[in-house]
Every structure is written in structure tokens, then in C-alpha cells.
């Protein structure tokens, strides 16, 4: 045996054998006398801790009484995994998904409708704020229950506001006032390059909600038949984005956006005080607390085109019971436990989200990691809070909307033309889906 082989054996072979022989083994024990409930959830790592704790408590108390054992299974890519498992006839009993997926799954009959079942199992829904139930409905029926809801607000840097001669206690309420803030909060170096930016809608910096901007111009996007981009209000939003780009300079903006880092990425430009305002959810206070505790910031609702109508984007993580789940009854018992105000609010608080209840208990605010959580709560109260469009083909439409935003941001097309072109593509997507639904109806 030569030296290399000997080294190879000692450095790799031996550890491998030792690891196989004595390495840790995944222990997996469930009590024999209980019904095992498989609960798939997207939260992993530190994020999963609050829910794991709740599951553990349920298993110890209510679960023990009712003979139910909930198994918390963290699943990455949970929508896809749930989709494949449901298609394969082997779904979990409960899945924690995102609200935007409800119409798509519900329209394919993949989710158990919960209206009747909730009543039968005495799950109290009356205490929930209506917007959160509305988000869980599709076509008039309830297909999910809210787990950790959130509204998205405007985080603004108070220090930069003061520096720009703006009153940090008067965040902008209208788009016009907002534009003025953006103008004054944007700074350049001698060469004209942007060193500090007021705000951006660039999907490269914030990849999540690129479809949302027309809503702040009071647009009605989905009317049940058509996704309408070509209304004056929706057009106004894209004209607004294009006008801001023209005003601040497209090449300079693109360069800044390509360099300053993404908001959910490794280099967060808001924390680095290079971006003065961002559109984000309540959890961002966690990042600020960990990485930029000195940051002087405030939170306000995102401005709308008028001061009177307060448009608020509301969204939620949700619980669903997939069709074909083996233990729907037990799943509902567990849901009933989860929907108790003390339990659910504990989860929402630890996840740094808002409470889904009309009247959150005082300790919800007291112990909440986000000091501005009340602002997010109030936003959810707005009569003009809106969620994702309740359309089953939204995933595909959304990709076209991303394309539209990019066209407007880069100026590939004038905003008017870009909207018209995207309207045609969106219509075709919707049309194809409706044709497919019709063929499905006609099929034996």
C-alpha cells in the first residue's frame, strides 16, 4: 500500500466507517397509541422554534387527551412538496402554505373547504379580523385559516429624513408627498452617481411583491373575469414608476440598484442607510435589531394616491388541509387548538407578525419584538386592505407582471405600450386557463 492510499484511508475511509458505525442516528419515535398527524411547515431553523414549541405543548396536553400526536415536519419548498404529494395521493394532514397559493390549489379541488367543518369542530372564527378570513377564501368558500398574518408598510430612516430637511414625525401620506421625499432623500456624488436613494420599486432589490403598485393608485385589478391593467388607475401606477425613473435618471438608478444589494439578501441597503425607505413587513425589525441596532427608523402605512383612501397590502401564511389527508378530523382538532387566541398570538408574536384577531390581547403588544407592531395592526384595520388577487392562474400572470415592471423600470418600452402589451399577454393566460376549466367541465 502506498502512502497516498494509506492517507486516503485514514483521512476519509476511517472517518466514514466510524461515522457509519457510530454516527448519530435519526431517532424517530411516536407513541403507539396515538393517531399520528403529519404537519408540514415551511419554517425551518430558528424560525420553526415557536411552532415546534406549540406542537410539543399540544402533544403533552390536548393531544394526550384526544389521542392525537402531531409531528412537526419542516419542509423546504413546501408548496412544491405538498403539490407533488397531493398529486401522488399521499398528502400531509395539515400544511402550512402561503396565501397566494390558495386560489390555485382550491380551484383544482386540492383543499378541504373549512366553513362547515370549522363550525362542527367549534373553531371560533368570529374573533378574527375579516381581512384575514377574506384572504383565506376562494369563490365564496373558506379553504384555509390564517396562521401568521402581516401587513406591509413603509420603513423610513428618520436620521436621513432630518438630514434632508424632512419632518421624521410626518411620513408622507400621499404619493405626491412621497415623491417629494424620494427627491430630497436621493443624493449623488460629484460624478452624478447615486450614493443614497429615497425609494425604488426595482424587483432586483426586492423580489417579492412586484405586482402591487397599481393598488396604491386605487386600481381594481382582478374582477373575476379579467385582470385589468389597462384602466386609468393601473396605468397611472406604471406612469408614476416611469416618471420617477426618468426624473432620477435611469442609468444611475440601475447602477445603484445593481450595487447596493438586495433587501432580503446579504447586503441590506436600508440597514446600511443607503436606501432611505423600503416596503417591508413587520419582521424587518428583527434584522434591524440584530444587525443595525442603532438605526433610527420609523414605520408608516405606504402612501396612496389620495390621503383619504388608505390602501394596505395584507398577506398571511396559512394552514390548509389537503384533499386526501388521512386524518382530517384530527387535523381539525389540532387546528382548533392552534386557533385559540393565546396560542396563535404567541406564534404570531414570536414570528414577528401581526395578530389575526380583532382585539389582540394586551400582552401581544407588550412582548412583541417589533416596537411598531401597532402600526401594522392598524393597517390591517383599513377598509381598503387587500390581499393577492383571488385568481387561480395568478402564478403565471404574476410572471408577466414582473416582466411588465421590468419593462417600465428599464424603459424598454414606454409605460403605455408596455401596459398594453402585458394586458394582451395576461388576457391570453387567463383565457387559456378558462378554456381549460371549460374543457374540464365538459369532460366525462
Amino acid at each position, binding site marked *: 500500500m502506498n502512502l497516498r492510499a494509506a492517507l486516503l484511508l485514514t483521512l476519509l475511509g476511517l472517518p466514514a466507517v466510524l461515522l457509519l458505525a457510530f454516527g448519530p442516528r435519526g431517532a424517530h419515535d411516536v407513541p403507539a397509541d396515538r393517531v399520528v398527524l403529519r404537519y408540514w411547515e415551511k419554517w425551518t431553523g430558528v424560525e420553526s422554534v415557536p411552532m415546534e414549541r406549540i406542537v410539543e405543548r399540544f402533544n403533552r396536553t390536548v393531544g394526550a387527551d384526544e389521542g392525537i400526536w402531531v409531528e412537526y415536519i419542516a419542509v423546504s419548498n413546501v408548496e*412544491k412538496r405538498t*403539490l*407533488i404529494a*397531493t*398529486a401522488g395521493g399521499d398528502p400531509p394532514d395539515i400544511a402550512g402554505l402561503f396565501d397566494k397559493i390558495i386560489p*390555485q*390549489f382550491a380551484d*383544482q*379541488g*386540492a383543499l378541504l373547504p373549512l366553513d362547515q367543518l370549522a363550525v362542527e369542530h367549534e373553531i371560533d372564527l368570529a374573533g378574527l379580523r375579516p381581512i384575514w378570513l377574506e384572504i383565506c377564501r376562494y369563490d365564496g368558500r373558506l379553504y384555509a385559516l390564517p396562521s401568521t398574518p402581516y401587513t406591509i408598510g413603509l420603513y423610513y430612516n428618520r436620521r436621513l429624513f432630518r438630514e434632508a430637511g424632512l419632518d421624521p414625525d410626518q411620513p408622507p401620506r400621499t404619493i405626491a408627498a412621497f415623491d417629494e421625499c424620494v427627491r430630497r432623500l436621493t443624493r449623488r456624488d460629484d460624478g452624478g452617481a447615486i450614493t443614497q436613494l429615497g425609494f425604488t420599486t426595482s*424587483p*432586483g*432589490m426586492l*423580489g417579492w411583491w412586484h405586482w402591487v403598485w397599481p393598488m396604491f393608485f386605487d386600481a381594481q385589478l382582478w374582477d373575476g373575469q379579467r385582470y385589468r391593467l389597462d384602466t386609468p388607475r393601473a396605468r397611472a401606477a406604471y406612469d408614476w414608476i416611469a416618471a420617477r425613473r426618468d426624473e432620477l435618471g435611469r442609468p444611475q438608478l*440601475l*447602477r445603484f*440598484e*445593481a*450595487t447596493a444589494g*438586495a433587501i*432580503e*439578501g*446579504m447586503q441590506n441597503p436600508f440597514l446600511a442607510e443607503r436606501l432611505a425607505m423600503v416596503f417591508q413587513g413587520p419582521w424587518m425589525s428583527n434584522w434591524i435589531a440584530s444587525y443595525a441596532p442603532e438605526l433610527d427608523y420609523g414605520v408608516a402605512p405606504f402612501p396612496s394616491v389620495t390621503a383619504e383612501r388608505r390602501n394596505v397590502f395584507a398577506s398571511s401564511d396559512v394552514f390548509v388541509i389537503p*384533499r386526501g389527508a388521512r386524518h382530517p378530523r384530527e387535523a381539525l382538532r389540532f387546528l382548533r387548538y392552534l386557533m385559540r387566541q393565546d396560542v396563535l398570538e404567541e406564534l404570531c408574536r414570536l414570528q414577528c407578525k401581526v395578530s389575526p384577531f380583532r382585539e389582540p390581547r394586551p400582552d401581544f403588544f407588550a412582548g412583541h419584538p417589533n416596537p411598531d407592531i401597532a402600526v401594522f395592526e392598524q393597517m390591517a384595520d383599513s377598509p381598503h386592505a387587500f390581499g393577492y388577487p383571488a385568481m387561480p*392562474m395568478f*402564478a*403565471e400572470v404574476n*410572471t408577466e407582471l*414582473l*416582466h411588465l415592471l*421590468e*419593462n417600465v423600470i*428599464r424603459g*424598454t418600452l414606454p409605460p403605455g405600450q408596455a401596459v398594453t402589451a402585458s394586458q394582451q*399577454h395576461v388576457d391570453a393566460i387567463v383565457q*387559456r386557463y378558462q378554456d*381549460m376549466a371549460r*374543457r*374540464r367541465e365538459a*369532460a366525462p
Partner: protein
Amino acid sequence: MSRTRGSLLTGLLWTAPWWLGFLLWLALPLGLSLYISFCDYPLLRPPVFVGAKNYTDLAADPLFARVIANTFLYALLAIPLGTVVAVLLAILLNQPVRGQSIYRACIFVPTIVPLVAVAVVWMWLLNPEFGLVNSALALVGLPGPLWLESPRWAMLALVFVSLWLVGSPVVIYLAGLQDIPLTLYEAARIDGASPLRQFWHVTLPGLSPVILFNVIIGVIASWQVFALPYVMWRTQRGPGNSVYFYTMYLYDNAFQFLKMGYASAMAWVQFLIILALTGLVFRLSRRHVHYRGS
């Protein structure tokens, strides 16, 4: 014909591991996918037969045309560049110098780095402001592009990353180089051939079958590019769909838009395209590939 056993039975017996596996794990899914390509199939409901509709829809789908164009462009950039770089690297790594195994490891190791890490590392390298690539360009007085955020450069950025991941072909080329008989070089030297001529008349012909092999693997791989753009671009398709590739669109159709019928039609078209391209490469290569002993 006494040299080989002629019986069908023994032949089938020996090749049984493969064809049993094929029948067990592949034949059924493949047959199903062919059938499904003629159906509406939203995964969560049973398929509904629609004839050739998915195929005719594909022909009229502008995004489908776009991903085909992107995929071809990527293949046209990445395969030739990758081949040149890999062959040159292999020649360099084949020089008899000390510590060669360390150099070889340096080139090979990037191929095994988890993709998430690859993506993060390259997002940093290609940052237009403080990334090392643009800093290096600035040193020689060139203005650096925006790379990932530029519709024009995003594709090239991806090609760069693919060059960094060139380790496996390099290893195969290294093997090919070691297989070229030294006598051929000696003969060339006696004839007074310069190193360049030796490369041209000995190395390249000797390496040509390996190049063919790698090009074919490259063609197949380029039509299956998928994970890297997904993790490198926040929009998962790059600015203006510039790095949106065939398999990515197929995957989106299947698991995001729940159009499995459409995705299956795409898969069969893809299969035919790869088959045709491979055939084309073989045909084109016939005159340039030199098999020893023939």
C-alpha cells in the same frame, strides 16, 4: 463470429440490470408523460385529453421562443468557450511540474461547491461597485458592466460562472492528453515542429474524440440548465428574461402554473431537439475526429 455469444437470451440476461431498471422506473413514467403531453393535466385532477393542443400552443408561445433562443445562445457561448478554456487548462495542468495535484484540485473543487454558495460568491464577485471582476477591469481602464442586473451582460455572467465550473471536462481532457502516445510528439519534434504546430497536429487530433464526447455532454447539459440561474437571480429569470432557460420554463409550467400537459409536451420537444443536435454534432465531427487505429 465465434468470438461473441450470439444468443438473445444471454444478451438479455447480461443487460438485465439496465432494461429491468428501465422498465421499472422509466418506461411507465415516460409513457405517461407522452400521453400527458396530449392532455390538460393540472396535476391535482385527472388528465383530460386535448389532442395536439399543447404542441400547437407551444408553437405560438412567445416565451417558449424566448427560452429556446436563450438556451441556444447559452450553448453557443458556453460550449465553445468552455471547450477552449478546458483544453488549455488541461494542457497547463498536464505539464510535469511539482505540486501539480494541488493545482488540479484547485480547478476541480469549484464543481462540488453547493449551488447556494456558488450563487452568493458570484453575486459578490460580479457586484459592479465593489466586486473583484469590475475592480480588475478598472485596473486596465475598462468600464465594468452591471453584470447580473443588465439584460445584455447577464447571460455572459452566467457563462463566466460556467467556466469556473469547468472542472469535470478538464479532468476528462487531462485523461485524454495522457492517452496520446509520447512517440507522436517525439516524431513531431524530430521533424522540427514548433510547440504550436505540435499542438495543432498532434494534441488536437489526439484529443478530438474526447472533445466530441465533452461537446455532446455539453449540449445535453446546456438544455438542462436549471438550478444556477434560479439561485443567482432574485427574479429567477434575470433582467428582461435574459437568463430564463428551457428547463426552467418547463419546470415553472409543471410546478408553478400546474400545466403538466404543456410541460410534458415541452419535454418531448426538448428530447427531440437534443437528439437532433447530438446527431448533428456527430455528423459535423465525422471529418475532424480522429480515432486511433482507424
